[in-house]
């Protein structure tokens, strides 16, 4: 008897507990459905989540006492972050992925056609499949919290919104905005979403009251959403917004087929311009939207699911998904929590780099001293930081008051006062070993023993700099990329003597600054500069061989680089390139051969140091967007002219001569242990040097392109130019054994 009862209770318990992702309760006549993935910080639309959601919805629809529904997440800061990527990656064929997409479409169709209104109550990230879910609901309420963002980031993974997004978005926000949202994949803040018509109502986040503010804000969101749900049922809240004149005009224009055709054309042209046709996803998105609007929604949904399947199988999507996963991994500190948090940071040198580092640090609750040796430099640097924040004020992402309080945490000075309180110093002074030694000694004389000395050099070996240090365990390299506020990568370089805690501290600060971080071993040029150097040497040779700068830029951008290689050289600075080139040649000898270094030294002598000087290979004029060739630079190139061997000078050869040297050097870094894994190599190349993202990075490129094919090409070049094109051992191993891959 007792046993039986126990069993019954047990069974009941099991029945209740069998749902782990979705639960609901009925408040008055409103069913509040709560989403909560039990084993993750975020909710994703995984298979169990979808199954349980379908079950719960069926129960709710079958319950006559329920008149409306509120859909809300129990996770702080996340509504639904998107579909489960693993679910898509587990699929082996396009058909399987298409089937997944169709299941999602069906589920959201049911939601859209629900006999009772469903209110999505959004707090935190509402992305991808999460947004598509919300879009299918009848009403959307979102908190104005900074964590609340809506968007369809699928395009960044080489995919498209595959659960009705391409069909619903244009109807909801109009064709131009829908394209903007889907093709950029950008995050949209709640207030912007309201303006666009993506959400109906906004709820303000609350401060602390009788409970924690996050907890209470979500409760409040639920209360308000329940109120709206009841209001929709009793018709006091209208489901459709009254449209303004602009909206009506736009709707009218979109009703004209000719106008729509023009929009498709313009958008396609713009996409082709930006992607050079290398990314299939944006074009497919346009196709899906077009199919839905021109051939009816059935055709649209079919197009969407099939294209989704196709895209998921493309190498581009796989590469982009790989980068996404790498990026997530590089946003973690694998060295643990440092003993001391960096609260006071000093930056030496208020140049572009120093000021850039200050800008990304000072708004993260870190007090920053920006030190320079001259008033002019210091004031220019402070202005740069101010401009950075002021631009945010203009974009309304911060208030002018926040700008001012942030700027108050930045102290500009010419001396070492206050350095006795500093936890870390990042030096961004001139790239000269003796100057670096001088400041290192000066700094160590005034800073506390725990203070870390980080050097922002792009080429000098850290151990040479650390040689002057009393505390080499506190010396580390932090290689930022210019412009610091835009470039996501931070390359951290450790020497044999760098302590683990120093590394942990540097990584922690970098993460605070919002950087994607790779940690590499010390050596000339570390990883990124080392990959770039042989490519620049080759670039110079190509220029000497008479390839027009504009043509070189075109060839490199059509290969997928975000900016042309010659423009890149101008951006980096010809003087920097010359300096790095010399150091690298000293270290690596003839493998770094290519163009004649005297070309660049002559340019530097004439003051053509690149963009910053207004003249490099190109001429840069303020306010003008078109770039003209610098005739004086052309003269110099003519003086050093080389003849171009026809066997290795086709357009494709030009591209592969550049790329193969880059890739070979990257593999060499892994072979030599500078890199600890291929993933960090890919992340570094893509986020720091602009290696084409759709190729996923040099390592994924070798996997996809075939090591043997690459070695073949290199052999051809080796015959003409010698050992600069000798494939490294690792590449040769991969070429010999096709089962060897960097990514499984």
């Amino acid at each position, binding site marked *: 008897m007792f046993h039986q009862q126990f069993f019954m209770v047990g069974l009941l318990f099991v029945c209740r507990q069998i749902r782990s992702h979705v639960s609901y309760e009925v408040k008055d006549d409103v069913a509040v459905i709560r989403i909560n993935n039990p084993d993750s910080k975020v909710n994703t639309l995984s298979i169990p989540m979808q199954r349980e959601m379908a079950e719960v919805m069926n129960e709710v629809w079958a319950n006559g006492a329920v008149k409306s529904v509120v859909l809300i997440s129990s996770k702080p800061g996340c509504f639904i972050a998107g579909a489960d990527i693993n679910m898509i990656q587990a699929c082996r064929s396009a058909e399987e992925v298409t089937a997944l997409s169709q299941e999602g479409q069906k589920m959201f169709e049911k939601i859209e056609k629900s006999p009772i209104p469903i209110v999505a109550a959004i707090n935190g990230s509402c992305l991808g499949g999460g947004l598509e879910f919300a879009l299918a609901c009848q009403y959307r309420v979102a908190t104005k919290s900074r964590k609340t963002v809506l968007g369809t980031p699928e395009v960044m993974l080489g995919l498209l919104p595959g659960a009705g997004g391409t069909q619903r978005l244009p109807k909801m926000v109009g064709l131009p905005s829908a394209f903007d949202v889907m093709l950029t994949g950008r995050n949209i803040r709640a207030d912007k979403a309201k303006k666009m018509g993506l959400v109906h*109502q906004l*709820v*303000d*986040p*609350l*401060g*602390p*009251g*009788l*409970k*924690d*503010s996050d907890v*209470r804000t979500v409760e*409040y969101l639920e209360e*308000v959403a329940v*109120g*709206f749900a009841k209001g929709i049922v009793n018709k006091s*809240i209208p489901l459709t917004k009254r449209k303004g004149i602009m909206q009506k005009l736009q709707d009218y224009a979109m009703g004209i087929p000719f106008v729509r055709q023009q929009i498709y054309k313009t958008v396609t042209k713009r996409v082709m311009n930006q992607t050079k046709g290398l990314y299939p996803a944006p074009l497919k998105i346009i196709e899906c939207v077009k199919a839905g609007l021109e051939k009816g929604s059935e055709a649209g949904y079919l197009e969407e699911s099939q294209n989704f399947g196709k895209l998921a199988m493309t190498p581009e999507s796989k590469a982009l998904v790989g980068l996404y996963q790498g990026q997530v991994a590089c946003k973690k500190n694998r060295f643990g929590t440092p003993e001391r948090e960096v609260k006071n940071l000093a930056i030496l040198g208020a140049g572009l780099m120093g000021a850039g580092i200050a800008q990304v640090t000072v708004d993260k609750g870190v007090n920053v001293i920006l030190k320079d040796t001259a008033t002019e430099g210091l004031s220019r640097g402070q202005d740069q930081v101010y401009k950075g924040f002021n631009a945010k004020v203009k974009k309304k992402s911060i*208030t002018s*008051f926040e700008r001012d309080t942030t700027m108050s945490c930045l102290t500009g000075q010419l001396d070492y006062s206050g350095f006795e309180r500093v936890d870390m110093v990042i030096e961004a002074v001139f790239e000269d070993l003796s100057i670096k030694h001088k400041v290192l000694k000066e700094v160590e004389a005034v800073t506390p023993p725990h203070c870390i000395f980080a050097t922002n050099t792009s080429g000098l070996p850290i151990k040479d700099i650390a040689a002057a240090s009393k505390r080499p365990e506190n010396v580390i390299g932090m290689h930022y990329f210019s412009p610091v506020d835009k470039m996501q990568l931070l390359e951290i370089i450790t020497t044999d003597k760098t302590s683990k805690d120093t590394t942990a501290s540097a990584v922690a600060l970098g993460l605070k600054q919002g950087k994607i971080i790779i940690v590499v071993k010390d050596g000339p040029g570390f990883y990124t500069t080392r990959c770039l150097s042989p490519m620049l040497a080759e670039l110079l040779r190509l220029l000497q061989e008479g390839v027009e700068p504009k043509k070189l830029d075109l060839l490199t951008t059509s290969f997928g680089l975000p900016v042309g290689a010659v423009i890149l050289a101008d951006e980096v600075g010809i003087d920097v390139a010359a300096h790095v080139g010399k150091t690298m040649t000293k270290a690596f000898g003839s493998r770094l051969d290519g163009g004649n270094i005297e070309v660049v030294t002559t340019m530097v002598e004439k003051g053509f140091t690149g963009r910053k000087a207004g003249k490099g290979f190109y001429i840069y004029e303020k306010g003008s967007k078109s770039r003209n060739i610098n005739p004086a630079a052309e003269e110099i190139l003519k003086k050093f002219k080389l003849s171009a061997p026809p066997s290795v000078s086709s357009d494709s050869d030009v591209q592969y001569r550049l790329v193969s040297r880059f890739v070979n050097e990257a593999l060499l870094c892994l072979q030599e242990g500078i890199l600890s894994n291929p993933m960090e190599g890919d992340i570094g190349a893509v986020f720091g040097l602009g290696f084409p993202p759709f190729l996923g990075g040099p390592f994924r490129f070798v996997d996809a392109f075939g090591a043997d094919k690459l070695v073949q090409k290199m052999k051809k070049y080796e015959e003409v130019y010698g050992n600069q094109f000798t494939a490294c051992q690792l590449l040769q191993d991969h070429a010999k054994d096709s089962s060897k891959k960097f990514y499984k």
Partner: protein
Amino acid sequence: MDTQVFIIIIIIIIIIVSHHVEGGHFNVKIKSLAFKCSMQTKSKKTLAKPGVKNIVLVEGVRTPFLLSGTIYNDFMAHDLARAALLGLLNKTSLPKDAVDYIVYGTVIQEVKTSNVAREAALGAGISEKIPAHTVTMACISANQAITTAVGLIAAGQCDVVVAGGVETMSDMPIRHSRKMRKTMLTLNKAKTLSQRLTLLSKIRLGYLTPELPALTEFSTNETMGHSADRLTAAFGVSRREQDEFAFRSHSLAKKAQDAGLLSDVLSVNVPGKGIVSKDNGIRPSSMEQLEKLKPVFIKPHGTITPASSSFLTDGASAVLLMSEEKALAMGYKPKAYLRDFVFVSQDPKDQLLLGPSYATPEVLEKSGITLDDIDVFEFHEAFAGQILANLKAMDSDWFAQTCMGRKSKVGVLPIEKLNLWGGSLSLGHPFGATGARLVTAAVNRLKKEGGQYALVAACAAGGQVVMKVIQNYFFI
């Protein structure tokens, strides 16, 4: 012997007693004679501190508080302040040269009279030899004026100070846009006609858009009402609770007005419009009517309505403060001692109006008394929800521990002792003047109700708050 003289004599006697045998048999006698309040339950019989001067409030007055845009429409701020000053002088028969100093508080300054205290004093015929200055601290500007005065007296700088506050929202300094101002100022410096014409030709239509004084919090860009609505939501204060509190405020104000308890209100002659002697914002209605109102700040789901917010008001107030010795020497019968005060401030975003919760325990500890010792509470009612949120905050252990860093909650504030003669919701809230109204109301209630200690609190923009303890003078 007429009664006037008799009273003065009694006071003198009491003073003598209080100096020699405080709490002695005389006290008991007087208590049994005049007051019903049981003093034995108080933790302390007086808040006088050794070595600290006793500062007394002799009298407090105010002009009627009127809805902005009504009868005071043509008054400038200094007109209202002058009316309050004159009223105080008349009521106390204080000679115009007996004042040592004048301090006034105001929030939105009229640029022509930025030191409004001085203009009002000169206008009132107060000796030109008497200095005056103006302070500003948002809604607690008058409190700041009073505490400034207390400081001047305590420091021995002055013996007799008039403090007060004034605000008019019927007229506001609306400015040209920044671009227009810049052009106009450059125009001043332009020397030739062509320079002037070039400047003038640069003026665009957009330059003509006027700039209104901001009613939003500068640091957060949020209006106070919006912040208050979020505050009520954070504390789960319901719409109904707020409506009830607003209803209470108007009902109590009406009752007090009808019973003639608002004795601090002066009669003011407004040229061309006759004599005003009553506040005109008191509008007791019904709960049904209040329920119908729509939220004003957060739409459509907010809970604060026009009825549960204080309204834009014109008015001025003034109090006469003296050192105790001086008051007695001049033959005055002081009404109350002004004792301890604290100013606190906190996060202007989420805790903009939560100050009273923070300041209450602080000032009580400073005085060495407890919440139970207080007989009269006068709290500024910015919004019904704000008062209620504060009551909930003080009654929450979580809030005390998490936000205030205290071991346990402050306690339940006895609402039956709070704002019994109405509050800012019903009487009105001329920003700069409210502080002095609160102090005078607390003092008059102490007198009327026979209490011993009063607590005055007001919150202000910027997340700041003032808290004052007032001690009735009946004991001395």
